[in-house]
């Protein structure tokens, strides 16, 4: 239903036509995609938890990154995995990639790890390895806890993992210093907590899509998760911490600006409303 034609300034900023709002939003997004002006990114407590958990792993222990994601959540989980890998390399921690579901995840993560390894001059099989996709959910975890070389068998390239230098002295879950779950699937966390973190007290950290993250805050409170990356925001924060601002930072930067715009519009509308109300003595004009 059409409002009366605005005349005063306070009316005008109360009734910005919707087309202007649309144009402003599109303008901000395009502008920030093409010529980004970085707004500050401050790592949140859950994100710092992930970084600290990685840094705290003793040098003789392995970090296991399970990359249970595929193309459908890649926008969030891809940058998450990438920055976690950077955090491992920078802290000179040995890590392995594996996954339980979907098979694609371990391939996508392998590409990311290879790219990063080149940068740090790290060698496959020595500084990092890829255990590959392992079918069997709970059964894999239970077997892994007791005897890793047996449970894993061959790596991503078909080499028996026992022959990799990185696996020297690695027999069971006690040589694993941290498990990082990167996933867009529910139930993975419950499985790791129930079968690994609970019985063996192996530290656990996780990275989730923004949609599923809220379910897992309680695990953070109870310290069952040392840290957590929440969607693209968590990925962006970790990218900043490892000094590799990438895709997630770019997206979160646009998000920040879009949110600033919406907040500013709301404030403007209210300002106009309050001015107009002051003028008419508290009554709605």
């Amino acid at each position, binding site marked *: 239903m059409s409002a009366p034609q605005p005349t005063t300034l306070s009316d005008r900023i109360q009734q910005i036509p919707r087309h202007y709002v649309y144009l402003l939003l599109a303008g901000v997004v395009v502008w920030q995609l093409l010529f980004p002006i970085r707004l500050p990114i401050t790592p949140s407590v859950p994100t710092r938890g992930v970084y600290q958990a990685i840094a705290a792993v003793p040098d003789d222990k392995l970090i296991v990154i399970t990359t249970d994601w595929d193309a459908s959540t890649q926008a969030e989980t891809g940058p998450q995995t990438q920055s976690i890998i950077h955090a491992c390399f920078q802290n000179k921690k040995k890590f392995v990639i594996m996954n339980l579901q979907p098979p694609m995840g371990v391939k996508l993560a392998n590409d990311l790890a290879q790219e990063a390894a080149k940068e740090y001059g790290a060698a496959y099989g020595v500084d990092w390895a890829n255990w590959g996709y392992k079918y069997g959910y709970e059964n894999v975890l239970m077997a892994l806890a007791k005897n890793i070389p047996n449970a894993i068998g061959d790596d991503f390239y078909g080499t028996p993992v026992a022959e990799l230098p990185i696996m020297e002295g690695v027999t069971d879950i006690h040589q694993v210093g941290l498990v990082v779950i990167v996933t867009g699937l529910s139930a993975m966390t419950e499985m790791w907590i129930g079968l690994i973190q609970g019985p063996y007290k192996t530290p656990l950290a996780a990275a989730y899509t*923004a949609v599923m993250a809220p379910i897992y805050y309680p695990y953070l409170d109870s310290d069952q998760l040392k840290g957590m990356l929440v969607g693209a925001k968590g990925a962006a924060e970790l990218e900043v911490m490892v000094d590799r601002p990438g895709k997630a930072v770019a997206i979160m930067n*646009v998000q920040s600006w879009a949110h600033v715009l919406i907040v500013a519009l709301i404030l403007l509308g209210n300002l106009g409303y309050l001015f107009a109300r002051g003028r008419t003595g508290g009554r709605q004009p």
Partner: protein
Amino acid sequence: MSPDLFILWAAAIATLGIYTILYRENPISRLFEHIFVGLSAGYLIVATWALNLEGKWWNPMIHDRKWYWIFAPIVGALFYFIYSRRLSWLARLVMGLFFGVGAGTFFRQFFPLFAPQITACFKPLDYQAGMGFQSFLFEIVLHHWIFAIILFTVLSYFFFSLPHEGRFGRGLGRSALLGRWFLMIAFGAMFGNTVMARISLFIGRMQFLLQDWLGSIIPWFAGRGL
């Protein structure tokens, strides 16, 4: 022959065509609306056959020779009697069947849907052994007490057969008013929580338009904004 270039251009034009509706409903958006509705109608038929009927009905009936599957389409055909005044009661018969299924399905879902929601409300309200004052304040008061207060005031808002005046009613009325306020807070929170997801969708589309499509014409765009 690779379809990639056609896909790129078709997708870009379709996206821009839809965005014209932001100005107002117009001949271009109307054309794409009809194409979209048409494609989805065609796809509905294909999917109904290829993902549903072929495997669940046709193959068992013809290849496994389970001839009793013929009864399913006969029952389904009763729906078509809505177009006849005299025979429409047969359509109502099969509709009645689906009404019953709808009700029965809800009976089945009642506990799986709601029991976990009920048990998730069972949160202790007292001082737990071994917690300091600070964690009592944060974990119990700011979390569990507030949770309980909001839950009960909101529930009181949804009583319809009790008046909000009179001796008992005034108390209920106040609680219901408080419940309404809490509802508004929750709605605001849900609104705020959705903004980011919706902006993401648009960022995704703009990345496609700027980098993939414009970038294929003017390489400069392909290198911008990651």
